[in-house]
């Protein structure tokens, strides 16, 4: 039996920042972090960004919180909330006073598609990297965040890449249709074969069969189809789940003062937008994790941060805040069409999100605009 003041379930960036948040208020209380990943905490964004553009693996690692006991390669499999107990997959029991669920998310998978790399973890990166030799053929399934980033990274590494996705354009769920279509042409200019509007009927580690029967052979098949929050443990414990563990402004789960959730797995209220959201990006993982960790140990503070997310696609890059959703009305302000500009996402006449496309150091201005509830972003 391991006894601890704070048990953090999940060894990713959120859990790490939560431990640091706890330490700001409690220098001595024991912190135990249990994570399924066999590696200690690392900076996940580098797996599809920096490591492909020259950053060495040493840049991945983060210094863990002072005195936190980190258990890697173990998954908590059951919780007894009233008894303040948890059990991991090796049968070890943990007795805790405060619990944080930072279980993150798992990649969405195509049933039966064995051998495909569902890109998510450091081990996935290492596997893909080892196969990404000059001239190797890769198929990337998915045209969203991970699909577009890994395709660009692989192409930059000299790999022959074919992208397959059912939408008409890259980033179609995020960007206005014109920009999404431009990205298809842009990726093709960069040497990526882009098969947009294509369904997939079967996939394996070395081939993808399209809906029309065509077969794409490859040395490696990578998929980026989004992620699904790992809520199974919370559901089994009777916690409220709605595409994520439902938490309040302080990161507490409904009806309890001693159980919290943060990061990718948490559905949290966003006062500035009047909705709840679940966000799977670094800034939210760090900021929410640290704040909720602090709330476990000290006076509670509410989370009113509007998280940033960002990406690099070959020579293009963007930062965005708020609801960046192509289903909303979009107002575009381009200095150079599709190369440098700003898109404001509008609903009922109010700005809900801002996309800063190759425009830098404007995130705080974008946040202010969204909080103001009026206007659109102009360069």
């Amino acid at each position: 039996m391991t006894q601890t003041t704070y048990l953090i379930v999940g060894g990713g960036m959120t859990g790490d920042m939560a431990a640091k948040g706890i330490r700001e208020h409690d220098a001595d209380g024991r912190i135990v972090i249990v994570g399924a990943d066999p590696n200690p905490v690392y900076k996940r964004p580098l797996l599809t960004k920096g490591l492909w553009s020259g950053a060495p693996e040493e840049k991945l690692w983060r210094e863990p919180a002072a005195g936190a006991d980190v258990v890697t390669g173990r998954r908590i499999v059951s919780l007894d909330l009233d008894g303040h107990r948890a059990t991991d997959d090796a049968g070890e029991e943990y007795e805790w006073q405060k619990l944080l669920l930072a279980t993150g998310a798992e990649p969405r998978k195509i049933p039966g598609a064995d051998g495909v790399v569902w890109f998510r973890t450091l081990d996935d990166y290492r596997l893909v990297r080892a196969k990404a030799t000059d001239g190797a053929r890769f198929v990337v399934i998915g045209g969203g965040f991970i699909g577009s980033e890994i395709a660009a990274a692989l192409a930059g590494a000299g790999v022959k890449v074919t992208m397959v996705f059912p939408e008409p354009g890259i980033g179609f769920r995020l960007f206005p249709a014109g920009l999404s279509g431009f990205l298809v042409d842009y990726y093709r200019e960069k040497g990526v074969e882009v098969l947009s509007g294509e369904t997939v009927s079967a996939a394996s580690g070395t081939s993808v069969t399209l809906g029309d029967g065509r077969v794409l052979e490859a040395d490696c098949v990578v998929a980026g189809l989004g992620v699904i929050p790992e809520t199974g443990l919370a559901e089994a414990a009777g916690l409220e789940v709605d595409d994520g563990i439902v938490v309040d402004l302080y990161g507490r789960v409904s009806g309890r003062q001693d159980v919290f959730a943060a990061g990718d797995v948490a559905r949290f209220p966003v006062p500035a937008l009047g909705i709840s959201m679940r966000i799977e990006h670094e800034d939210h993982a760090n900021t929410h994790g640290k704040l909720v960790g602090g709330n476990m140990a000290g006076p509670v503070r509410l989370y009113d941060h509007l998280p940033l997310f960002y990406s690099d696609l070959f020579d293009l890059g963007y930062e965005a805040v708020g609801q960046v959703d192509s289903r909303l009305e979009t107002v575009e302000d381009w200095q150079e069409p599709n190369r440098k500009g700003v898109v404001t996402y509008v609903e009922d006449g109010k700005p809900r999100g801002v996309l800063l496309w190759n425009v830098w150091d404007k995130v705080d201005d974008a946040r202010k605009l969204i909080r103001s509830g009026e206007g659109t972003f102009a360069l």
Partner: protein
Amino acid sequence: MADPVLVRLLGTGEHAVDCDECFDQLDRYVEAELARQPVDELFPGFRAHLVGCPTCAEEHESLRALLETEEIR
């Protein structure tokens, strides 16, 4: 409920409806829905397209709301 991301990616194995076809037939589809007709048989592939296409789904919801209002009147 089926995962809409996988429905979009994998298709349904039936006739694939594109946005143009959806746009052309949406009014008939909604009228059939409101008349409680078997729309999946009458319009194969239509539901899968609506699940997968946010633009057409929004159009579908708007049109359905409009026609429902007219029915009430």
